[in-house]
């Protein structure tokens, strides 16, 4: 199974995303923002970073890139797409997911191991989690405050489209503690925290068992591989 990872100018976490895909058992395929050829990949990850230096608005210019336009087209046909941090911002700016992401409420960049609850385990990227499973993966962002109109929030809650919610601490002022969302079909998922940084023992968040042993992020990528095998 081949999972593409798009690199934009200013992307930081493309190599980590590729590594996560490899550790999950998939084949990572590097994709370039200016190229509208998605190389027949089975799924796509939009990684974290600061595409186009966050010019205009975070993710706004990347949303117009040739590779992204192809992703939008294919996502509407069911291609699994995961947007992480800046990738989540790109999904929102592409209108694949509703709402917007604004500067953290406290105005500071934040970097911490964040506890989340998996609210929806029916998506292409969360099907290996238990419903309400609590996980810990790193979070690092400056503009991660999720906002949307009251109607949109109501719709997201009613349709079970909030996939992850912040637990114990809301790190950026996101409405309803929303950390991640999915689209109607469940193939597109976007979240602020970084699953690709919690995939290998020795390099993940601390757990009760041992320091840096957390690998809760691995299931995101394994879920996508499972979804692809079953499709």
């Amino acid at each position, binding site marked *: 199974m081949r999972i593409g990872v798009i690199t934009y100018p200013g992307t930081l976490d493309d190599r980590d995303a590729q590594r996560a895909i490899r550790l999950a058992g998939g084949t990572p395929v590097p994709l370039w923002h200016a190229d509208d050829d998605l190389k027949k990949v089975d799924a796509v990850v939009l990684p974290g970073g600061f595409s186009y230096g966050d010019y205009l*608005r975070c993710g*706004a210019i990347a949303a117009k890139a040739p590779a992204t336009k192809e992703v939008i087209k294919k996502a509407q046909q069911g291609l699994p797409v995961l947007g992480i941090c800046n990738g989540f911002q790109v999904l929102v700016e592409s209108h694949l997911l509703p*709402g*917007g992401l*604004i*500067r953290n*409420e406290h105005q500071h960049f934040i970097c911490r191991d964040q506890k989340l609850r998996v609210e929806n385990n029916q998506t292409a990227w969360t099907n290996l989690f238990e419903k309400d499973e609590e996980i810990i993966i790193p979070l690092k962002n400056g503009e991660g405050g999720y*906002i*949307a*109109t009251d109607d949109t929030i109501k719709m997201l809650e009613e349709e079970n489209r909030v996939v992850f919610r912040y637990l114990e601490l809301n790190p950026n002022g996101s409405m309803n503690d929303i950390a991640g969302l999915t689209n109607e079909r469940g193939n597109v998922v976007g979240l602020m925290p970084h699953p690709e940084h919690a995939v290998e023992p020795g390099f993940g968040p601390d757990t009760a068992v041992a320091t840096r042993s957390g690998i809760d992020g691995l299931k995101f990528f394994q879920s996508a591989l499972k979804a692809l095998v079953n499709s």
Partner: protein
Amino acid sequence: MPKIIVEIMPKQDLLDPQGKAVANALVRGGNKDISGVRIGKRIELHFDREVTEQDIEEAKKQAKEFLSNDVIEDVVAVTVEN
């Protein structure tokens, strides 16, 4: 140079931390009658020819769909300087 000017402001009910910080500095500097500051964006689209009605329509479309995000911002003006 002919240009179309697009002005964008953060939505009224949204916190504008930049404006708040500037307002605090102004008031500290003695301008105590300034009750608030909000900071938006002015985007100039330059042309090497006269701006047409069609250009303005396209600019309005881009202002709404790309230059601003209607969840957090309002396009407050699209004007032409020929």
